[in-house]
């Protein structure tokens, strides 16, 4: 048992996952992740560098990944906005890497020291064009450790950048944690470098470890050679990448369920808000209201079938989040009218209390019972 800070747990998880390159830029409330990596990497022969801005930080991470290293950066809203172009570049070039965004009040400089969950849609769609995205989040220090490792594992398995959304509170809070055992997915080298097609494969050859490679952000063939005017080829590659996530949707979807087996009322949330929601479930159950909590740890790809299935078995759904309506859009689409969906949003840098969430569930229950 150790008293560990959220950001520290992220760094520890990264090291445990085999991360050997970190490039970053200071920004509240993510800076401690960088500071920890600066201390943890050199004894392991890993590389740490503070770059000149966030654009350079993610560029360096991608360069390092093509050198063969598991690589990560960490930032917050303003820096995450700067990284969008390179997130798209990493997706286009099938580069495994992890980008941590510890969310704070936005937009713009906003509330630098206060928590928010306002980057949920941006994490999915912030970069131009169509691309698959894996976005994870966490609600406790222990989860930060475990899900950081999961982020690396998923990025290696699917050859995609994976975004991990934290928040200002989670990043800076300290909890007594027993760090769990975790499984680590290592980068898979190709069986034969000679016959290897670098794109469309889940194996990975770094520069210098075989025949020369071509990596470009232009639309390209599976060999890597640019095909800048071949639209159908690009669409084929995008769909292939998206379909791969679709096929493995269940394996990628991480969540925590509380009281879902017999719930009449569903609270669907994620991240720091899930802590309050768990308290709300307790209060409601004590009052004889069968509430349940679906805490999503995988936000994207959004688990539509899971949510649709749950919604068909409950009387109402409440979606609390620290933004003015982001994940609720995906929830509403998945629920498809099977149950009323009530949104609880705020952008004031504060959390929902368990009482506030419970009140929303009661109001929903009351409306349903009156209908």
């Amino acid at each position, binding site marked *: 048992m150790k008293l560990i800070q959220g950001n520290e747990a992220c760094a520890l998880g990264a090291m445990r996952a085999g991360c*050997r*390159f970190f*490039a970053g830029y200071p920004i509240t409330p993510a800076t401690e992740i960088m500071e920890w990596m600066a201390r943890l990497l*050199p*004894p392991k*022969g890993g*590389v740490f*560098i503070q*770059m*000149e*801005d966030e*654009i*350079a*930080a993610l*560029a*360096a*991470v*991608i*360069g*390092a*990944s*093509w*050198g*063969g*290293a598991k*690589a990560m950066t960490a930032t917050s809203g303003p820096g995450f906005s700067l990284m969008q*172009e*390179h997130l798209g*570049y990493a997706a286009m070039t099938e580069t495994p890497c992890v980008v941590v965004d510890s969310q704070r009040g936005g937009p713009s400089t906003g509330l630098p020291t206060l928590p928010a969950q306002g980057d949920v849609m941006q994490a999915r769609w912030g970069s131009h064009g169509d691309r698959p995205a894996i976005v994870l989040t966490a609600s406790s220090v222990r989860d930060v450790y475990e899900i950081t490792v999961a982020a690396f594992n998923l990025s290696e398995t699917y050859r995609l950048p994976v975004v991990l959304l934290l928040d200002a509170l989670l990043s800076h809070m300290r909890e007594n944690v027993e760090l769990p055992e975790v499984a680590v997915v290592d980068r898979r080298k190709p069986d034969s470098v000679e016959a290897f097609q670098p794109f469309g494969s889940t194996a990975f050859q*770094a*520069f*210098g470890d*075989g*025949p*020369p*490679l*071509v*990596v*470009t*952000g*232009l639309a390209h063939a599976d060999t*890597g*050679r*640019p095909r800048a005017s071949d639209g159908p080829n690009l669409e084929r590659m995008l769909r292939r990448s998206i379909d791969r996530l679709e096929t493995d949707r269940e394996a990628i979807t991480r969540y925590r369920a509380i009281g879902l087996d017999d719930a009449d009322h569903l609270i669907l949330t994620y991240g720091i808000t899930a802590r309050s929601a768990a308290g709300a479930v307790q209060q409601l159950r004590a009052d004889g209201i069968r509430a349940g909590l679906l805490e999503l740890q995988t936000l994207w790809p959004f688990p539509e079938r899971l949510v649709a299935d749950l919604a068909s078995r409950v009387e109402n759904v409440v979606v609390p989040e620290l933004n003015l309506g982001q994940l609720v859009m995906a929830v509403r689409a998945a629920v498809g009218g099977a149950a009323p969906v009530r949104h609880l949003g705020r952008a004031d840098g504060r959390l929902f209390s368990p009482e506030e969430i419970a009140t929303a569930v009661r109001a929903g229950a009351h409306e349903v019972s009156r209908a």
Partner: protein
Amino acid sequence: MPRVGQDLRQYLQLDSMPHVWCPGCGHGQVARGLATALDRLSLPLDQLVLVGGIGCSGRTPFYFNANAMHTTHGRALAFATGLKLTRPELTVITTMGDGDTAAIGGNHFIHACRRNIDMTAIVYNNGIYGMTGGQQAPTTPRGARSVTTPLGSLEPPFDIVQLALAAGATYVARSTTFDFDELPTLIVDAVRHPGFAVVEVLTQCPTYYGRLNELGDAVAMLDYERDLTLPQEAITKEGLAGRRPLGVFRREIAPEYTAQYAELCARQAARS
């Protein structure tokens, strides 16, 4: 021994030839200079990574038989930094344009110069943005026409060499596409330099810069380049102010970043 006219096909990606650069474009001559330099350096091509930005110069890596990383506009040096730090044994050369380096890439350029990581940056300076159709660059001379300065540019241009020197680069050189032998010599010098090396190459864009400023075709533009420049020693001797100086402006040995970092790691490992 320096040779001319030798067979350089082994360095080229033959099935991508002919390259996409315009008739008479200086970038093809810079590519030849690079291939000639590789011929003199005897580097294993699978241990070489050419990192390009976006723009005509950024296409260079596609035409070579080495590893190619075609990145985002202005950021080649940032990608190269991450790669080189992870794999210091690889040779990393960036091929960037003038806007790529000094406009959108300005921040990454000055920091790469400052850090002294053992990499080489070849800056293809044609004074214009070629690929997007002839817009002003931060190196476009005052008064020169471009499609975004149709009445002549009002802005004083950057001097890329001075920028690199001020930012602390330990090897800084300038050549032109007219100087067909000095160019590969300087590239060899730069690659061998154990630190961050910048080679600025003045190269002609007959399609845009030349046409918009009535400088004629590639033949005329090479003469123009010849008359615009002079080896720096000659300028001092003959008092020919107004010519742009060529040659090596700084060659210093200073602590190289990846070597220092390796030492730091070794010290850390020894203590634990």
